[in-house]
């Protein structure tokens, strides 16, 4: 069962592998993942490209579940993933590129006020959406 209270620990586990750590240590994320060549194609694989960036799937699913629960709408994982990728100028050939683009998008979200409140946490729209993807894919 997915709860709607997002704990501090859940958040740390997720966001440190998204925007925040990469912003603080620009080289870190790409070094760690640059060798990961993307091999998937088509829509369902784009979802995998994004959710693979999350090292702690359980925490992300918790946040994503809370986000989906409060928004009260179902999502189509493929189209959400594609729109995230497209918004960042993708598709990308490596996980490193995907991660860097995602970090940029998250930063842009915060710059332009595209934020959502999930369990009291102020998150970027993009990171909440990625967490929602994890929630949906892990539930199915």
């Amino acid at each position, binding site marked *: 069962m997915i709860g709607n209270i997002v704990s*501090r620990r859940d958040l740390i586990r997720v966001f440190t592998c998204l925007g*925040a750590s990469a912003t*603080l240590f620009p080289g870190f994320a790409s070094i760690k993942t640059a060798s990961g060549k993307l091999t998937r194609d088509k829509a369902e694989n784009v979802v995998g490209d994004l959710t693979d960036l999350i090292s702690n799937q359980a925490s992300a699913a918790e946040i994503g579940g809370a986000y989906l629960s409060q928004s009260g709408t179902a999502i189509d994982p493929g189209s959400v993933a594609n729109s995230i990728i497209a918004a960042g100028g993708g598709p990308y050939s490596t996980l490193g590129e995907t991660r860097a683009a995602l970090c940029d998008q998250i*930063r842009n*979200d915060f710059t332009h006020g595209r934020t959502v409140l999930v369990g*009291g*946490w*102020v998150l970027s729209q993009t990171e909440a959406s990625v967490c929602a993807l994890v929630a949906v894919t892990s539930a199915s």
Partner: protein
Amino acid sequence: MFVDCRQLTDGSLIETDLCIVGAGAAGIALAREFAGHAAKVAVIESGGFEQEEESQSLYEGTVTGFPYRSLDSMRLRYFGGSTNHWAGNCRPLDEADFLERPWLPYSGWPFKRHTLIPYYERAQAVCGLQAFDYDIESWSNPGKLRTFQFDPGKLLTGIKHKSKPLRFGTAYRDELDRVSNLSIYHHGNLVDIESNDSASHISGLRCLCLTGTSFRVVAKTYILATGGIENARLLLASDRVQRGGLGNGYDLVGRFFMEHPHGGIGNIVLSDRFTLVQLYRGETIRNAFVKAVVTLSPELLAGEELSNIYFNLGARLSRSEGERSASEILKYAREWELPDDLGTHIGNVIADLDDVADAVYHRMTDDADPIGTLSLHCRVEPTPDPESRVTLAAQPDRLGIRQVDLSWRPGALALKSFNRGVEVLAMEVGRIGLGRMRIRPSGKNGWPPGFGVSGHHIGTTRMHRRPDLGVVNADCRVHGIDNLYIAGSSVFPTAGCNNPTLTLVALALRLADHLKKHV
């Protein structure tokens, strides 16, 4: 010289040049300025040298409207006044606080900030602080004392100084006792301000002790320095000649009561627990204890028509079990000893080796402590509002003066500004990768549950050049009365968001300079 009014002969007359009523921050700052001056000065203080239940009970009153703490607990009625429970935080008002802001009704001081700077510089020492320097560049550096790289068009890092804090009564008691032209009358209460028939000149003060001893003070010039609520109360209660109270020809006395909404709003979970936050935690630099605060930029405030806000950050150490064990082992090792449960501690360190190594590395390289979260507190500028006010209740106190009823509200603009300020901070925290912010949900009245007040009583005898918009003029003299002045935060026309003590002391020093020319 100190005089216990309870020892005076009933019906005594005290004649002096200058009479200051109230020995809190403003009254003491003023009195010190007259040391060695030709003028003879008398200070009338209600309490003694420590808190007494009987005197304190004279502050009892009622509160209606927005929730507030009990009136007799927020203020202290003895020598030193509310500095006896002051936290010591000092920061001058910002440039924009003095300006007329079209979106903030009744805003605008009769002078700009630069007028107060020389007095702020002097007030700094009076408050027990080092030199007046609130320039962030003077205190920060790119190393350990770095500031967060917020968008300067949105957020700025500022500085506040923290006094020990100085208890004015304790700190200045001996000094004032030695001043030959100064007499401090304690345990004496002002109960009526007497005036001529046109209420344009004060002719004397009728005073009473709780023991029943009465006395009268006649001076050339009088200054009320009894605090942001009592200043208004005493004017309102002195209504035998002027209906509605002295200085109240335009029904302004007691109105525009302001208080800073203040409280915890949530926290920031840092993305890197070794983020350097020393300046925001507070640091002693060149003998001054300074602490960084985060403010909204003047551009944002003006562009979005907001009232002023500042955020105060507090750091909580976040050590893993292994780090705590390593620390414990080190503590004993410094004394050439070992803890009893050494085996358990070593086990914790081994199990948590990554964190321990990380902590040791940061301790050696940048002196950073592991910080898990930054707690967030916010203080908001209230809206000047004539309906937020102090009035007299029917119930009299033990001396026969009607108690106060406080009906206040922070204003819709304050709440709007608070919400927007929190939003901007959360966005910037995310944008620069500092971490993520968790905010408390709003309560029934729109503010987070538990959000409180600061104990700052402001605006009830507001300053304005025009008598129809202010109780006192730019010199803090009551409009229409030639020898009555007011000191303290009750004269602030707007409250800003910074702690008021430094500003009220600066204004008291400015008033002293003015009076020295005229007394």
